[in-house]
């Protein structure tokens, strides 16, 4: 009940990040963003989902002040990110996609540097907690260059958290990351959210969006093609296919199976069943039982997920 009310409160509140008419044309003439409008709600976890090259990093970089927009505006927590950059940026933390870290600094020094840079007074207890949460405490006196890639990613997260952002951007946080770090990271993210931090992450894995996000925005070729609550979107995205390679050719789908949504390929040896992986019952066992009863044998059985590309294509079609 409380959760529902909270969700309502979120939905009606002012967005914490508001992007309007944002475009970006790079120096080489490439148009990476084509008029983005996006509102992020206070306290939510928002996943920006899109294939490589869609413009996720460009969008995040503009919001954070690393890339100049060609046109449009960004307001973060009431501050325009150009005219009132101080107010906007003091609230934003960024964990970039690439492992851009200093080499010779220690973990401890680099976190305190970040804190100072964002105008926060030293607070060793806070930095200590952040390092402990990310299993970096033992490494605090190590130079960053001696750390593995996964550890460097942790350091980047620690640097962002060292300055207590109320809006946190994670750009492809789990790309090339081991299971352990994924696990630690999601724990940290959940805890941040409980404290009211708004989190925006980009990913090209549907599973990741599914696992973490409250809402998902899909970006494709520089355009946001839809923004939905996760549950709604996952239903759209949850369509799967079951392919049955038959032992013997069929002329047509048997009468007895006509009520199931089945399709037979042209050769008559492949039976295709479409189902919703997220629904309570997929109907697969029912189908298999009835095939057995009919004496229809199959050599092989496979389920295929729609790839992200296919889903994007279908979403675009749906929209058109």
């Amino acid at each position, binding site marked *: 009940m409380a959760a529902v009310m909270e969700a309502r409160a979120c939905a009606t509140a002012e967005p914490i990040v508001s992007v309007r008419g944002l475009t970006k044309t790079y120096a080489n003439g490439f148009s990476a963003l084509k008029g983005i409008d996006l509102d992020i709600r206070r306290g939510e976890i928002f996943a920006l989902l899109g294939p490589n090259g869609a413009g996720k990093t460009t969008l995040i970089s503009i919001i*954070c002040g690393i890339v100049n927009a060609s046109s449009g505006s960004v307001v973060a927590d009431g501050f325009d990110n150009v005219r009132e950059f101080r107010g906007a940026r003091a609230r934003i933390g960024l964990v970039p996609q690439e492992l*851009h870290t200093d080499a010779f600094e220690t973990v401890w020094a680099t976190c305190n540097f970040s*804190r100072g840079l964002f105008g926060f007074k030293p607070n060793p207890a806070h930095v200590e907690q952040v390092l402990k949460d990310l299993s970096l405490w033992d490494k605090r006196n190590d130079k960053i260059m001696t750390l593995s890639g996964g550890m460097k990613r942790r350091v980047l997260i620690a640097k962002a958290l060292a300055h207590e952002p109320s809006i946190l951007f994670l750009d492809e946080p789990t790309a090339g990351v081991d299971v352990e770090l994924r696990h630690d990271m999601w724990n940290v993210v959940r805890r941040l959210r409980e404290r009211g931090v708004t989190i925006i992450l980009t990913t090209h894995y549907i599973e990741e969006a599914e696992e973490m996000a409250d809402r998902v925005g899909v970006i494709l070729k520089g355009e946001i093609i839809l923004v939905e609550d996760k549950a709604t979107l996952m239903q759209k995205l949850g369509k799967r296919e079951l392919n049955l390679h038959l032992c013997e050719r069929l002329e047509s789908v048997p009468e007895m199976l006509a009520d199931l949504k089945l399709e037979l390929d042209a050769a008559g040896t492949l039976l295709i069943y479409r189902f919703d992986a997220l629904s309570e019952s997929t109907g697969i066992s029912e189908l298999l039982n009835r095939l057995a009863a009919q004496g229809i044998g199959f050599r092989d059985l496979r389920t295929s997920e729609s790839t992200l590309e296919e889903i994007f294509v279908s979403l675009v079609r749906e929209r058109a």
Partner: protein
Amino acid sequence: MNWLAIAAIYKFEMSRWFRTIGQSVASPVLSTSLYFIVFGAAIGARMGAIDGVAYGAFIIPGLMMLSILNESIGNASFGIYFPKWSGTIFEILSAPVSWGEMLLGYVGAATTKSMLLGALILVTARVFVPYEIAHPFWMLCFLLLTAASFSLFGFLIGIWADSWEKLQTIPMLVITPLTFLGGAFYSIDMLPSPWRELTFFNPVVYLISGFRWSFYGVSDVQIEISLAAILGFLTACILTARWMILSGYRLKR
């Protein structure tokens, strides 16, 4: 004013320098010592006094300027070029730091290093030649203004450079000739016409002349002109840096 950010950048830059303190200090001290041995002791012994100042002492201000110019430019250009090259600049760009604060942090640190180096050279010079400083206050002013304006200039080069080659060519191709022809080793009066007149287009002449005046009370150029030239250069650099940072020139895509 985000003083904590200025302090963070300043500390970062200083600790970078102290990490390689041996290298940072040894090479300029060694090269100035060599200059003193060769020009001051060996050649200077056969040279007459210039404007009533013994040759060994005469070259001290010029040599200090030479080192300070090189170190200021080298240090400050590397300080901003390196994070640009490695990508860590993203954090500076995303932080609530204004152009002025960025300058104070980076250029302030480079200026400090140059001032420390200047002091070190002054001490080293003492080993080779006796000298006195006529106007210590103005000596400090000139030192500070030169270190600051050329650190700023180096900062601009660091932003402008998009390759390691470019980062190194400017100091080599522009600054070294200008300092050598700037009157470090001779008085401008010693040059024949038209070289003497041409020299007045070299900004370094004003620096060295003013600096030498603060030591020995004699100068090639009027001291007010020297001061105005440095202040003008400083202002031009500040305005350029402001424009570069605000527009994101070669910092933001």
